[in-house]
């Protein structure tokens, strides 16, 4: 009670003043917060965080114009951005998104498994994919440690950054890239030194993991850590690096000769679409995403255009195309790769455990 002595009564006006300030700040923000709601036709988009800029600045306004022109209807798109896995969990848990644009097929699969995506979202010419990218390296300006290949990442004294695959879909892609590159490298070598490609890939993964300095929660955070001066090389999406380098950040992009093609899916959440009666709108939006205008917007923020399933379409990709580009399909598909690398006996899990035991 000592603190509440009579002399403290003078602080009462201050408390009132603080309260008044708080109330007026809330009053000021209230109309801003409310403008999002209350529109006749509304679409809820749940996306992972990376393409936020493309959606907000270009694609959504363009779609609104397109829809108005076609039907005369105003459309409001409420968009939410967050980690891909968190978005998937939120949708399963009751977040009524009409469209899920996520970074991993596995996350869409989780929504499908919960019975919210009834149709075959992989149908259509683009197989449910809206954006593509590569796993690439970001290195310090001038590439002082001369990092060009995956083997360079395993050199002693090189500090590597990528996020934790448990929390980051991006990190799963990164580790898939290391492992897959290991297989490709082993194929090249096998002429001279015959050995199991799997063993070589596992060993490469372990040696790279040994040099990892920080494992952030997400790819974005990992880039922030890199920009804070930690690490010699960051393994991440090419589209994370490109726009930042363009805006003058002091690092460079290196695309290794062997790397994985990243494909990011989009799907209608059927149950919510039907509940909100917006199927026509949602389907038009997904088609729009694969159209020329949206693809240009994605390209501007660093993505590569989606690859039509047709052969020979690689030429349409932005250069440079790595010499030995592979896809998740080449490694046996998501389900197989998840178990192979991230399961309890997976190569990455084992690498981490072995390193901790000093093996």
């Amino acid at each position: 009670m000592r603190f509440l002595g009579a002399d403290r009564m003078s602080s009462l006006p201050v408390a009132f003043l603080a309260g008044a300030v708080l109330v007026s700040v809330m009053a000021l923000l209230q109309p801003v917060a409310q403008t999002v709601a209350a529109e006749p036709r509304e679409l809820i988009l749940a996306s992972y965080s990376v393409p936020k800029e493309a959606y907000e600045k270009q694609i959504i306004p363009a779609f609104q114009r397109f829809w108005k022109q076609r039907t005369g209807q105003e459309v409001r798109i409420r968009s939410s951005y967050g980690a891909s896995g968190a978005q998937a969990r939120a949708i399963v848990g009751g977040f009524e998104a009409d469209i899920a644009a996520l970074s991993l097929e596995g996350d869409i699969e989780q929504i499908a498994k919960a019975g919210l995506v009834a149709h075959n979202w992989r149908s259509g010419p683009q197989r449910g994919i809206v954006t593509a990218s590569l796993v690439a390296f970001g290195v310090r300006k001038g590439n002082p440690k001369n990092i060009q290949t995956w083997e360079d990442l395993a050199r002693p004294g090189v500090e590597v950054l990528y996020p934790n695959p448990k929390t980051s879909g991006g990190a799963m892609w990164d580790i898939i890239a290391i492992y897959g590159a290991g297989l490709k490298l082993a194929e090249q070598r096998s002429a001279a030194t015959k050995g199991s490609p799997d063993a070589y890939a596992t060993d490469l993964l372990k040696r790279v993991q040994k040099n990892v300095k920080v494992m952030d929660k997400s790819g974005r955070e990992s880039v922030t850590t890199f920009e804070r001066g930690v690490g010699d090389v960051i393994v991440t999406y090419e589209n994370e690096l490109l726009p930042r380098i363009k805006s003058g950040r002091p690092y460079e992009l290196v695309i290794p000769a062997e790397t994985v093609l990243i494909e990011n899916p989009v799907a209608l959440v059927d149950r919510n679409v039907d509940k909100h009666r917006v199927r026509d709108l949602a389907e038009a939006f997904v088609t729009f995403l694969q159209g020329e205008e949206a693809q240009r917007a994605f390209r501007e923020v660093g993505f590569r255009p989606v690859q039509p399933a047709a052969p020979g379409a690689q030429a349409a990709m932005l250069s440079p195309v790595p010499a030995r580009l592979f896809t998740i399909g080449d490694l046996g598909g998501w389900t197989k790769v998840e178990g192979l690398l991230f399961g309890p006996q997976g190569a990455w899990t084992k690498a981490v455990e072995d390193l901790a035991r000093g093996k």
Partner: protein
Amino acid sequence: MNARQLVSLALRSTAIGYVLVLILLPLLVIGQQSLVGGLGRFSEDIVQPQAAAALVLTLEAALAATAINAVFGTLSAVVLVRYEFPGRWFLNALVDLPFAIPTLVAGLMIAALYGATSPLGAWLQRGGIEVLYNVPGIVLAMVFVTMPFMIRSLQPVLMELERDQEEAAFTLGAGRWVTFWKVTIPSVLPGLLTGLFLTFVRALGEFGAIVIVAGNIPMKTQVAPVYVYGEIESYNPRGATSVSVLILLISFAALVLLERLTRPPGERLPAVISRWRRSRPEPVAVPPVLPALRG
């Protein structure tokens, strides 16, 4: 039943209901969830190499943080209560800041201060001391977010402590340190214990600050809450729940122990404290007549 009894009943049931609904209910749910697969599954989740390593690291770091706060928190509390100096009010106001700022922001501040690009971080690195992305960073983050517990639990008891007891000890020939150890510390023991235990359990659960400053490398610099988050994110809610429940059990055991040790001041002194009191050597003990002399 008269009106007064009714009011009292209403008050009691509100209090009990409040605690039950807000704390016990969620606890029961998570406890039940962790046991869906049976005890075997639970222990299996705990002994997963990455889970076990994260738990051990968390306990070690929390103990280290508690030890650091025990020493420096106690000193700070004594200084803040006992010494008049310019800017004391300001320092006193600063103490609560770690409670007020989001721990994520605390992590960012530590990262900025000790990072390789800051002068301090660079200097430490030249000296071969890696704070950030290493265990010291984890301990530092824990110390930061728990600092108010120690100081704020000690301050009131230090203020209550009659200075004349210490003065009596002086008069009876005890030195500064003897007085501190034999008179001051035992008198403030309940506050001290509260601070220590709260620091420890709070440090066990810290996530926001640590996730920024630790490297979060499994089995190396990944603490249990960060592990739990990873398991949630990778669709393993059961593994996450099991580890969470273990942290909960440890925290709860610590809090029950604290409750036993610091039972309300009064007649029945908890065993530990009365033992402390009894073990004080005679010459230093405060003669019971002294308070009467104050008159």
